[in-house]
């Protein structure tokens, strides 16, 4: 087996500069979960189909299972751990909890981040625009209706 090449990286994760020594082939998902203990980002299909590993890169949703950290120095990475402000939950998190918009909860971190990116760009999204923004995030419990309602409720409160 060949030696694993390691690289020193400085990543901006949730507004904090973190210095890491990681194998260059590791995906952002693996680095977040295994090297930074940020396990809120979930490990799903690993192939870019399910969306449960969604994080925000410079405010836009991308899939951490298909990103290499060496490409991300200088970019702002936001995970679900960076969504609340101290002990104050983000209005989307509050709305999801109030409306029961999570069943097993595995898709929830990715959906919350994709929804946050949408509301930052478009504070008054229509139901169809919310559907489109969340079209890359699968919920296998199929509880989409409450998710859509919760995003609408949070949008209303954020305005």
């Amino acid at each position, binding site marked *: 087996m060949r030696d694993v090449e390691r690289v020193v990286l400085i990543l901006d994760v949730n507004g904090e500069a973190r210095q890491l020594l990681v194998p260059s082939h590791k995906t952002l998902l693996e680095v977040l979960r295994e090297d930074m203990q940020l396990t809120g980002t979930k490990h799903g299909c*690993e192939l870019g189909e399910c969306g449960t590993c*969604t994080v925000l890169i410079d405010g*836009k*949703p991308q*899939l951490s299972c298909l990103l290499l950290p060496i490409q991300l120095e200088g970019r702002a990475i936001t995970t679900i751990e960076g969504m609340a402000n101290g002990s104050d939950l983000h209005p989307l998190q509050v709305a999801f909890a109030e409306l029961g918009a999570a069943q097993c909860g595995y898709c929830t971190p990715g959906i919350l981040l*994709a929804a946050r990116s949408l509301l930052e760009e478009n504070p008054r999204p229509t139901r169809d625009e919310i559907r489109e923004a969340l*079209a*890359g995030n699968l919920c296998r419990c199929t509880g989409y209706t409450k998710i859509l309602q919760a995003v609408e409720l949070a949008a209303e409160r954020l305005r």
Partner: protein
Amino acid sequence: MAAELGPRAMFVAGGTDLFPKLKRRQFEVDSLIGLDFLPRAIRNRSDECVIDAGVTLAHASHDPHLNERFSGYAQAAGHVSSPPLRNAGTIGGNLCVDTRCNYYDMTYEWRKAAGFCLKKDGDICLVAPSSPRCWAVSSSDTAPMAIALDGLVTLVGASGERELPVTALYRDDGDRYMAKQPDEVVTCLRLRRSLNTRSAYVKLRRRGSIDFPIAGAAVAVELDGDRVESCRIVLSAVASYPLEAKAAEEFLKGRRLQEDVIREAAEIASKPAKPLDNADLSHFWRKRMVRVVVEQALARVSDQQPGLDG
């Protein structure tokens, strides 16, 4: 660098097709060469639009100028996969996206158990075992539309720079599907049209998001009054390369885009499409649906009717 490293190195832009394929050992490389340093701008000129290959699909699909003047291209970019993938995937990457097949897009263990295929590690095509070639399917949404809009791509490699029509990028071979040299990189795409050109793209897939196309129609029509002066109809996902429906293009010349003409043109356009049983859903149904997607794309350019994909 790519010329020095040879076949054990690959370029990576958005990585949305490449990384899953590395994980499933469809691609096996020692080195990846990142293309993040390339420019990523959309430059609008009066009769053409130059899009850097590093522009993301999300950027292209939302660009106001592309939506106004090259609407079919913006639609095609906006129908690739899902929103988070379009934030990473690039227009250059989608032009070069690997061909797909039910026997190839599987895990290493599955492929080993079923027997490897011609495209990777094996020596026969599992879809057509008596055929000497690979029948994997061209699965780009933007390539057919770029061809319909007379697109030109710039390639830069160790031996210099050249520009060629998008159609010349592809070969009728599912395995070696690209005609460019391995060390050449697509650096930009130039779309051209007149003020009278209208374009549309209609995509068929199992779900409204995430999936690759299983049929699609890219149509660009130049009108002289209410008659077709010239047109290009290019089909996605029914052959190993974006398939141009030339007989239907000839048929439409000089005719008005009315319902019966559109129906007949769509029937003619669907003839050369011969999908095999190697993509999602039944290939008989996909063949029948080619007529429908062409009809919808032509209806969309004639009176801006929405298609299957809204």
